């Protein structure tokens, strides 16, 4: 048996060290990891994937810790018939744009989960990706799915307004707010609130929690509470205190209600398809760019870049030239003509 087949087999058997190795190989985009994941791929598509996102300091890690604890505390027949569901956590923290290093500190809040063989926590650095996840997060989730975890909680980097990639990679997206985070205009801006299937006001024991709930409710009412264009799901606004666990059982119930709703409405399949499309698209883009770079004569890329810096060439004309091997002025002219045509 080849290395990757052996590794895939070990992961299937539930060997945790093999799983950890596989996740590293995937993260480092090593061919052996991709090959093992290919072997395991038929086993994926079973886990319930929940995305947890929100601004830095709203309590994402603490809430993920409590969610996992609550899920592990009893049997949820929808997830597994005879035992509490196995829970995997993928926690993403930002990579420094200067050094390439990262401090992954989400485990600090997850110490309660130590010693539970039904839980697996993996920290990831975003490694230059900007959408709130790392580039390989969805493949890491696939591997955990194949390893038999019934629930996968993906915690994004502390998100601002536009880090919305998680919605394309999760069945349910949980957006965490905390009191005092902004006024009602913040709440009606596009972005992170739009992707919420569930909204949680964490730190609900602090002053201002009621107000935060009111502002969020008003924002959702303004938007018609459509929950990402899915009219029949009313996005609930829940309150929780992650440090004590208050409100968390209600939150788990709401998650499971959303899961049932997805399955009953056919959205479960649709979202699965969206995830697959996003993964395919990203991979295709990377491979095409890689192949293109490899096919270029030495120095051509740098030469074109230098012309752009000297303002002799626009980036649009440069891409045209690079892909079609036609001289840039022609490409630029045609580009302008096409734009003028479109305007008419």
């Amino acid at each position, binding site marked *: 048996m080849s*290395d990757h087949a052996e*590794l895939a087999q*070990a992961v299937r058997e539930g060997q*945790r*060290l*093999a799983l*950890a*190795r596989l*996740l*590293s*190989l995937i993260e*480092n*985009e*090593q*061919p*052996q990891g991709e090959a093992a994941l290919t072997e395991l791929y038929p086993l994926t598509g079973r886990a319930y994937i929940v995305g947890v996102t929100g601004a830095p300091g709203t309590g994402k890690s603490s809430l993920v810790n409590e969610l996992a604890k609550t899920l592990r505390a009893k049997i949820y027949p929808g997830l597994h018939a005879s035992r509490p569901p196995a829970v995997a956590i993928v926690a993403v923290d930002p*990579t*420094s744009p200067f*050094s*390439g*290093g*990262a*401090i*992954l*500190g989400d*485990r*600090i809040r997850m*110490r309660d989960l*130590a*010693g539970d063989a039904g839980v*697996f*926590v*993996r*920290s990831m*650095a975003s*490694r230059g990706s900007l959408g709130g996840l790392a580039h390989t997060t969805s493949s890491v989730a696939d591997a955990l799915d194949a390893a038999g975890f019934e629930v996968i909680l993906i915690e994004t980097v502390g998100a601002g307004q536009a880090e919305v990639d998680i919605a394309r990679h999760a069945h349910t997206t949980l957006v965490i707010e905390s009191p005092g985070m902004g006024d009602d205009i913040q709440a009606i801006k596009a972005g992170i609130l739009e992707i919420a299937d569930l909204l949680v006001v964490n730190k609900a024991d602090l002053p201002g929690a009621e107000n935060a709930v009111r502002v969020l409710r008003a924002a959702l009412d303004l938007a018609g509470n459509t929950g990402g264009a899915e009219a029949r799901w009313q996005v609930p606004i829940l309150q929780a205190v992650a440090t004590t666990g208050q409100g968390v059982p209600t939150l788990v119930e709401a998650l499971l209600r959303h899961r049932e709703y997805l399955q009953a409405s056919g959205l479960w399949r649709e979202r699965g398809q969206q995830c697959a499309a996003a993964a395919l698209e990203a991979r295709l883009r990377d491979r095409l760019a890689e192949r293109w770079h490899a096919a270029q004569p030495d120095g051509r890329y740098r030469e074109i870049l230098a012309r752009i810096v000297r303002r002799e060439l626009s980036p649009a004309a440069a891409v045209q030239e690079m892909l079609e091997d036609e001289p840039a002025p022609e490409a630029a002219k045609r580009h302008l003509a096409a734009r003028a045509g479109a305007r008419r």
Partner: protein
Amino acid sequence: MIQPTIRVLIAKPGLDGHDRGAKVIARALRDAGMEVIYTGLRQTPEMIAEAALQEDVHVVGLSILSGAHMALVPRVVELLRAQGQGQVHLFVGGIIPDEDLPKLKALGVEDIFGPGASTQTIAARVRQVAEGRAQSPGP
């Protein structure tokens, strides 16, 4: 193929509550381009070994100021070996009396850094040791 990023677990076993040193080291290794998993205070050897496994780290750094290193370090070494992670490199930082240095080295600790050790030296040493392993990755 990209060179695998060095992953380091910085942990504080035992009961002392002083984690400034651990944080300074975590920050220095981050600035040296490594991914540093920091687990916080009061970790048992079992918690540390479990985190090292799940995170598949190349290096574990233990910060110990309590004087309990001769109880804690052997236990961490034993657990790492038992779970098939004997190849993980171990560093210790903190207040360690001179007479214990050879004992820790004999257990397989790569290096011990006391007060005043420069963060550059530490980062360079961690990289050197980790890259010896990073050249032959995989199970």
